[in-house]
């Protein structure tokens, strides 16, 4: 297995993809088994992906838009909102496939269709992949996860990121195999010859503020302990959103360091949390979250700091290596999905997480995309969708 990563911040869509692909092939030297592509929404993604498919015919391609650009071991690559990154994975003994489907009215069916297409392209119909990559438009991540789990089993780690634009204006797109959608789900099925490791990390800690979601609908948290959720949240955060219009208003990036959390599991009595980003105050005093919220679930105010966001990426990579059956010296490369909100909050300090990743991965190439939500597999094996998370997937050599 060999992994290479390349990038371009050329504002010309085609030139960017040609530069990145040329650089990738120069580093890789052999045809890749799959290309993962993440680029900013300012590009003509359709043209880019078509061109990429021309350049690498018959090679599975999966990815989506990433806020502002991408990060690699070489830096945070963005220029005027443009940035494209490619990860090529050459693995003759492995199998890879990608699929894309429009979500439409049935996100689950779309997820299954995309997955079946990916398995088929990998030449492994019916076989359980080592991991599944997902990139979807915001809004249906949980359904997509459940659909994939229902299809291949809950034990397969799902690694994903909600495709992002640069300004939450809905310019996100999903790609696979020369095709692009703006409201779809792209899936990659990974059957690497080598081993993998992964982690799903928040970097936030719970505060004493907690309550019960007494009224919810989908991603809307109406009430906490019978009170309007926005008011409770404002109280918990000492008036953080007091200035937000009661008729509704965006909480991005205001709430970046104070998301809400729901306990997912416990480790020796200590819970671990899935984060939910409160993105908007609704006119009725409800909060619109970026994840589903279950009725009667525990709601905890989480707290992060710029410092914790800066340092957590390296720790997430270390956690991925901890669970992997190989050491850092054997890492071939990594895919990192980093919360857009966090990135925006520490944008000026992004070289710190880059460096910590590079150190932890011992210089192995990695591609980091910035997403509006992250899907990953918790320690207990739960595949979840969360916000303000970081996901790391590391690739290693075959078992000895």
């Amino acid at each position, binding site marked *: 297995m060999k992994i290479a990563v390349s990038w371009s911040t050329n504002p010309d869509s085609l030139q960017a993809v040609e530069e990145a692909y040329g650089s990738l092939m120069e580093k890789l030297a052999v045809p890749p088994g799959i290309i993962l592509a993440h680029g900013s929404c300012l590009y003509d993604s359709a043209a880019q992906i078509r061109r990429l498919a021309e350049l690498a015919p018959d090679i599975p391609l999966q990815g989506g838009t990433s806020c502002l650009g991408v990060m690699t071991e070489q830096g945070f690559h963005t220029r005027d909102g443009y940035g494209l990154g490619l990860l090529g994975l050459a693995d003759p*003994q492995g199998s890879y496939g990608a699929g894309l489907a429009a979500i439409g009215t049935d996100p689950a069916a779309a997820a299954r269709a995309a997955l079946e297409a990916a398995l088929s392209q990998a030449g*492994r119909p*019916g076989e359980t992949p080592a991991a599944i990559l997902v990139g979807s438009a915001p809004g249906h991540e949980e359904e997509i996860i459940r659909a994939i789990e229902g299809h291949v089993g809950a*034990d397969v780690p799902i690694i994903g990121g909600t495709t992002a634009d640069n300004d939450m204006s809905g310019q996100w797109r999903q790609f696979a195999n020369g095709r692009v959608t703006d409201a779809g789900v792209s899936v990659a099925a990974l059957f690497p010859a080598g081993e993998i490791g992964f982690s799903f990390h928040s970097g936030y*800690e719970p505060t004493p503020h907690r309550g019960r979601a007494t009224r919810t609908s989908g991603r809307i948290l109406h009430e906490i302990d019978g009170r309007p959720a926005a008011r409770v949240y404002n109280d918990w955060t000492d008036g953080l959103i007091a200035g937000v219009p009661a008729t509704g208003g965006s909480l991005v990036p205001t709430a970046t360091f104070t998301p809400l959390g729901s306990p997912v599991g416990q480790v*020796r009595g200590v819970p671990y949390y899935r984060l939910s980003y409160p993105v908007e105050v609704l006119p009725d005093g409800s909060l619109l979250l970026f994840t589903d919220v279950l009725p009667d679930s525990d709601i905890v105010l989480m707290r992060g700091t710029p410092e914790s966001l800066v340092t957590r990426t390296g720790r997430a990579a270390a*956690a991925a290596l901890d669970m992997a059956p190989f050491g850092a010296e054997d890492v071939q490369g990594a895919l990192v999905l980093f919360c857009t909100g966090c990135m925006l909050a520490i944008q000026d300090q992004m070289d710190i997480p880059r460096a910590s990743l590079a150190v932890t991965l011992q210089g192995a190439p990695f591609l980091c995309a910035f997403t509006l939500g992250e899907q990953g597999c918790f320690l207990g094996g739960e595949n979840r969708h969360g916000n303000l998370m970081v996901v790391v997937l590391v690739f290693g050599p075959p078992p000895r």
Partner: protein
Amino acid sequence: MAHTEELREALLDLEEARKKEIQQRQISEVLLAGLQVLVESRNSEDSFHKIFEVLRNPLDFHAACVLASGPDGLLTPIAFSDARFEKTVWKPAGAFRRAMTGKPVAVFDTAAPAEWRLQGEDFLKENRSALVFSMGTEARPALFLCTHPERAHFSRHHVSLAARFSLLAAQAMMRLDTEQRVNLLEEKLAAEARLAELHRKLADQERKLARVQKLEGLGLLAGSVAHDLNNILSGIVSYPDLLLMSPDLNQKQRRIVETIRAAGLRAAAVVQDLLTVTRGAAVAREVVPLNELLRQFLAGPDYQALLTGREDISLSVTITDQPLPIRASRIHVEKALTNLLANALDAIRDRAGGAVAVKTEKRHVAQPLGGYENIGAGEYAVLTVADNGPGIADEDRERIFEPFYAKKKLGRSGTGLGLTIVWNIMQDHDGYIDLETGAAGTQFSLYFPIIPDTGADKPTDIADADYRGHGERILVVDDQEDQRLIACNMLTNLGYEAVAAAGGEEAVAYLQEKPADLLVLDMVMNPGISGRETYERITRFRPRQKAIIVSGYSLGADVQAAQALGAGAFLKKPYRLEELARAVKKELGRS
């Protein structure tokens, strides 16, 4: 805050490590149990069934089988935990081929992979998910296939366990393969060693056979030469006796004739040796106690003659208490013993502390014994003559029994035939010779088969007080005129009425006309019928016709046949007057 978060992460790491440790322990236990089965079980089917039991809980499968590839490339179960697998046939496609390479394949939906298309719909419903992994080697590929009725049942943990088990199973199988290959190699080497041993034995047998054939060929030649010499010697040996019976000889003439007779007798001794070399010379055998034979020999003049002038040597004789009855020609055994003793004494000539040991013993040979010759299993009376001389050189060892091979003066007679005679005698006695020689000396062991001691066939002494006849008519039948003349002269001088016939037909004709009290019948006559046929024809009309047989050849089948018809003693040419007289007298006196 970061500190608190790090503590939380540390806790998570700890938990992860704990989970890993538990999983690893479970995996290790399973691997250990599985490997134990693989290594300890020699029967594949049995071991596979044990592995089913070992893996059933950890892999949580409902059914499992082990598939092996046939010559057509299809996979069929060689062991299964569920009878529904028994008749299944699998055509390997991508999933199975990948599994063969060592990476387990988990199938979340068996309806999709190509391998399952050969299976029936019911089978697929009962086996919705599967896990397949290699547990063979490149040389002996085999797949472990386990299934579960629930879709997407097999997890990463199962795959991980299967991967490790597969790896170790492959190593264990390789080890078993290696062991089997080593065993096969060892068997092959052992077979090659056995083959080499067989080749060596065959070469040994061929060498011995060649030796036997050579000695027999030489013996045949010697016998043939001896026969011709006998006829020539008859005159030299026999006529002096006739001349010496004449009262007209003066002392000087008598000494000359006696000298001629002595020379003739020495020449006859050489010829006798040559005749002994001919196989069958010692066919006339009787039951002889070997110990008694040895005692008589040691008391006899031949032994004393051997020791004359050899007071310097130490000679020991050990005679076993066990009876050693053998069927033997006493005179030939004595001859063999004489030759061996002569050789032994010669080997220690001029050697300080020279010693010769003679021994008899009874030996049981349970398994054929590869000595100088291959000694068959059985009970043997063994006569051993050993000396502490310098031994026989390796290059001589093979050829010492060949006639005239002796580099030193072997054999009492000095004819160069001593050991050849010994060898032939032992052949005629269905016995064996073993020879051990080295720097410490030489030991010849003569193996005579022991026979049950019936006490019968005892030797009979003949009375030799009165050789002379009383006018009995004796018909000499011989194709050689000089032989007829010699015999007739001897018989006439002994007081018999001697008549002669020049062949068998003439003898038959004579006896049809007139009777004769005894025939002196030559066995080999040419042209005309043989002595045996002559006697056979005669006994048809004279069934009680007495006869003694004479021949330049050794005792052979024709002689035995004639004796079976009633003929008496066999007398070897050239014979002395005394020998003829005793034989004739004895036969005439036989009732």
